[in-house]
């Protein structure tokens, strides 16, 4: 019994320590913001790696999700005779929830995992250590540009996701089923507000980008420097980031939308 309690206590303490370490890390990274601004080349390279190279999966997923939303929405609303609200339904679902959340999850899986693996590998092969000994702070040189790239890329990817998703819904409902395009857009424009819906969606996506970038980079930076350690860190990074995004989504939704 005492042994179990001691183990629980030790685990909790270790968990708290890890959390504190992660918070201190992100604080140092945020303080490095001016340094990153002075070297846009690094930021641009990372934006390409996490942003541009995520576009394909974002575009394809958005299209299919939008199409499915349109289809399912139409069938459900048809029972109520309210099919002219399908545009509203697709738009609100995407802008408020699916856009930010799915984009963040896809990002964590595609870009986040590569961040963890790359940083973890650099740690395992002592590249970060030798950088430190060359008097170059690896947190500023390697971590900070990647962090800010995630912070910038995710909201942009989310906006693209929402637009393409709405397009997908339009293609299916108006293009294929034959819903009237007029009320599709006008009902949508009536229902979607820039302050409550779009702005909140952007805030969510920025928060998710911050979280996903932070967690995946931290996991890579603190990985055990062996091949199994890096692999563990990569999977953990994706899982933790995804769960954190979903949890934060609930919190933000509760706060934002009454």
């Amino acid at each position, binding site marked *: 019994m005492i042994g179990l309690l001691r183990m629980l206590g030790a685990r909790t303490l270790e968990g708290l320590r890890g959390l504190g370490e992660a918070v201190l890390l992100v604080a140092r990274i945020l303080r490095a913001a001016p340094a990153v601004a002075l070297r846009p080349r690094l930021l641009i390279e990372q934006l390409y790696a996490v942003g541009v190279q995520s576009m394909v999966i974002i575009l394809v997923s958005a299209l299919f999700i939008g199409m499915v939303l349109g289809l399912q929405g139409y069938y459900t609303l048809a029972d109520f005779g309210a099919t002219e609200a399908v545009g509203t339904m697709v738009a609100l679902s995407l802008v408020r929830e699916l856009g930010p959340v799915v984009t963040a999850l896809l990002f964590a899986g595609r870009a986040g995992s590569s961040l963890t693996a790359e940083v973890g590998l650099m740690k395992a*092969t*002592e*590249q970060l*250590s*030798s*950088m*430190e*000994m*060359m*008097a*170059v*702070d690896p947190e500023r*040189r390697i971590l900070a540009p990647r962090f800010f790239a995630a912070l910038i890329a995710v909201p942009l990817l989310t906006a693209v996701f929402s637009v393409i998703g709405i397009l997908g819904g339009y293609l299916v409902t108006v293009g294929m089923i034959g819903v009237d395009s007029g009320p599709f857009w006008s009902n949508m424009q009536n229902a979607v507000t820039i302050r409550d819906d779009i702005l909140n969606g952007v805030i969510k996506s920025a928060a998710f980008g911050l979280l996903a970038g932070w967690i995946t980079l931290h996991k890579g930076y603190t990985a055990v420097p062996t091949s199994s350690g890096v692999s563990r860190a990569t999977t953990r990074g994706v899982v933790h980031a995804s769960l954190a995004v979903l949890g934060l989504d609930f919190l933000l939704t509760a706060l934002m939308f009454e």
Partner: protein
Amino acid sequence: MTAVEQGDPLAAVRGLHFRRGGRSIFDGVDMTIRRGQVTAIMGPSGSGKTTLLRLLGGQLHPQGGTVEVMGQEVPALGRRALYQLRQQMGILFQSGALFTHLSVFENVAFPVREHTSLPESLLETLVLLKLEAVGLRGARHLMPSELSGGMARRVAMARAIALDPVLLMYDEPFAGQDPITMGVLVDLIRRLNDTLGLTSVVVSHDVSETLAIADYVYLLADGALVAEGSPASLQASAEPSVRQFLDARPDGPVPFHYPAPDLAADLAGRGAP
């Protein structure tokens, strides 16, 4: 022990105590690194040789004792001062630790780019000269994945001397190399030290190579200094720990058997299968 003491002390550890994971790595150790010399730190695996380099570089902090480099107390330095000091130190890790996404040229150019704002033409000249010193000027466009282990280490050496450091540290530079490469590295370490006026610290367990170029040797075992002196004095020593290490004897003060209970008792305890 006859001490070969030419040159002033550049770095020193006094009364060094360091523990890691409940294990005591250093238990009160005194060592002096003298300017212009190649100082070797040798000992069996796990004797804390690499840890010492990290302590000198400020990546680790000792639990007790002092670590002094170029007159400065390393553990007490703030971030900025530490980074200033590191610009005067070079370190070569066992794996070379080249940046895998940069070419040979870019790897050597990295510290120069980060710490100076030299115009590109001047930078290119400097990098090529450093590569020339290690004999790899022609390989400048290769990527690290295309290099052999020995070549990678030489590139890492060029990178370590890129900013003309005062102190150069080598972590197991000869480990796992073929005889020719070993010969090249041995030669390079000594020549660079003398022609560039460096001070070198070589951590190694390759006896013949290290003794061939060292000016002064420290032998560590079990967290303590077992012997020190010139290579000649060590070769002449009759101390059992020194003899076991230098003569490569499998058993001696460092035992062959990991501590275990009596064999008969261990087997008997298993019972009939």
